[in-house]
């Protein structure tokens, strides 16, 4: 190599450049070969993923195929066999949520149950629920603190206000989405098609409740902690760079189970049920308690109430 440069003629310089180019090509090929082809998928799967359309325009067969692809992708990414379903909404059901803030003690059990249930990355900053620590005698959300970390809760002079997606009946996030990747399902849950989302985050700007979150990283989840019960519109493994939110545990609630946050709450402060059923717990709360909603004056009509007793 040094001999060539010493010769000084044009042919030697050309030779050097050619070798450098070839070496670069070789390294490039080696790097490409080290990564799994098509992102760990077969060529057909990657091809079908690319041409997959909006959830609401897919035929039943196309959705079935998409669910299979999600399952195989999860197997290659996490080494876990998940069950991705497409449970439809129940007829005659619209979900509502209520929180008894005089019962909430600020334990954050709901937050961590949600992280586990929805396969959120353990080291990422994303959490669907925030528990706000509020000062007694003050209802200014700007004065609240969600990073509180005392030795024991509740702290004297404080009370706790959990916030998450309010599942608005007139959701501003849906109006803001330029590609219609988010919408309200017939049972009142505002969902996101993670494969259709372009990650523009307009919905996050439109949401007055801090309920939408952008996933900056592919979630890192230990294989044994992976929740294998998933739903296309809910807690299935998501691609990076899309917006996520609370979906009232769509994979659980559509089968009659409580959302994970309610199941985890040790105080019974969380009430969930069917707003269309006059005998439901939700309707009892609405009829017998003095309820309020956050930022109700914005006209978003949240299906998430708070009450004291």
């Amino acid at each position, binding site marked *: 190599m040094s001999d060539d440069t010493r010769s000084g003629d044009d042919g030697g310089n050309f030779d050097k450049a050619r070798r450098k180019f070839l070496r670069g090509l070789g390294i490039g090929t080696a790097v490409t070969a080290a990564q799994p082809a098509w992102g760990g998928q077969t060529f057909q799967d990657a091809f079908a993923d690319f041409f997959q359309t909006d959830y609401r325009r897919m035929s039943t067969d196309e959705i079935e195929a998409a669910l299979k692809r999600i399952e195989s992708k999860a197997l290659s990414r996490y080494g876990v066999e998940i069950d991705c379903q497409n449970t439809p909404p129940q007829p005659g059901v619209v979900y509502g949520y209520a929180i008894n803030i005089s019962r909430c003690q600020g334990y954050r059990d709901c937050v961590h149950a949600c992280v586990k249930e929805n396969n959120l990355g353990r080291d990422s900053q994303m959490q669907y629920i925030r528990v706000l620590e509020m000062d007694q005698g003050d209802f200014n959300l700007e*004065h*609240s*603190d969600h*990073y509180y970390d005392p*030795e*024991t809760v509740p702290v004297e002079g404080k009370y706790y206000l959990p916030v998450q997606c309010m599942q608005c009946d007139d959701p501003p996030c849906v109006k803001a989405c330029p590609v219609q990747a988010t919408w309200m399902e017939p049972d009142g849950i505002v969902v996101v098609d993670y494969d259709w989302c372009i990650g523009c985050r307009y919905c996050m700007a439109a949401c007055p409740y801090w309920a939408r979150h952008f996933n900056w990283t592919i979630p890192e989840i230990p294989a044994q902690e992976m929740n294998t019960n998933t739903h296309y519109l809910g807690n299935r493994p998501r691609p990076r760079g899309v917006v996520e939110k609370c979906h009232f545990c769509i994979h659980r609630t559509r089968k*009659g*189970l409580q959302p994970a946050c309610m199941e985890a709450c040790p105080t019974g402060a969380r009430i969930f049920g*069917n707003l269309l059923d006059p005998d439901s*717990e939700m309707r009892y709360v609405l009829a017998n308690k003095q309820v309020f909603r956050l930022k109700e004056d914005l006209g978003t009509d949240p299906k998430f109430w708070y009450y004291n007793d």
Partner: protein
Amino acid sequence: MSMSRPDYRGVGNKIARTLLVALLFCSALLSAMAQESAEPSQALRFEGYPNAPEVSVLPRKDDLFFYPCDQCHESMEPNPAVRPLNAMHDSALEHGRGRIWCLSCHDLENRNFLTTLLHELVDFDEAYLVCGGCHANRHRDWSFGAHGKRVANWQGERTVYNCTHCHDPHKPAITARAPKPAPPVRAGLKLKRGTNHEASPSWESHQNQEDPHEELEEQ
């Protein structure tokens, strides 16, 4: 004009008064009849709230360390005297601030049962019937689902925690507990605390204010 007309006001009053007396008499008669016909013992028994959803309550007896209480109390002489307790049971009853004591809830003769205010025997698994005697509002909310913890599903058959699962009946105050970890602070951001939060309450500025009337009086 008013002078020439006969005054009917007094007549009207008289008629109204007679009617009122007659009405009162009738209602008294009716209520007396009603009292005679209904058996008071049946009318007084609490049989749950009408229209309350059917729920199954999680059993409680398996969790009780000393149950069945007869194990010891069978050989002990029942002593109804109100006295400070010691030995097996926690001597302090931190419930009711001295307005209740053991036999307000526990039956003296049948140790394996609780008792209501009307001295009905109640199983330990149905402790909510005892609690509801005083905490009727809570019991009503619990029956309809606005208070208490429901388990597993929101649809179909509901299962509920008993009152005594969450509230120790001898010391019902909920004790403080450590919270789960706080959310991480966004990468690149620094946690600023005590800026808005911990803001002094609005009345604090009034506390050290001088009374303007004092100045006026001095002048």
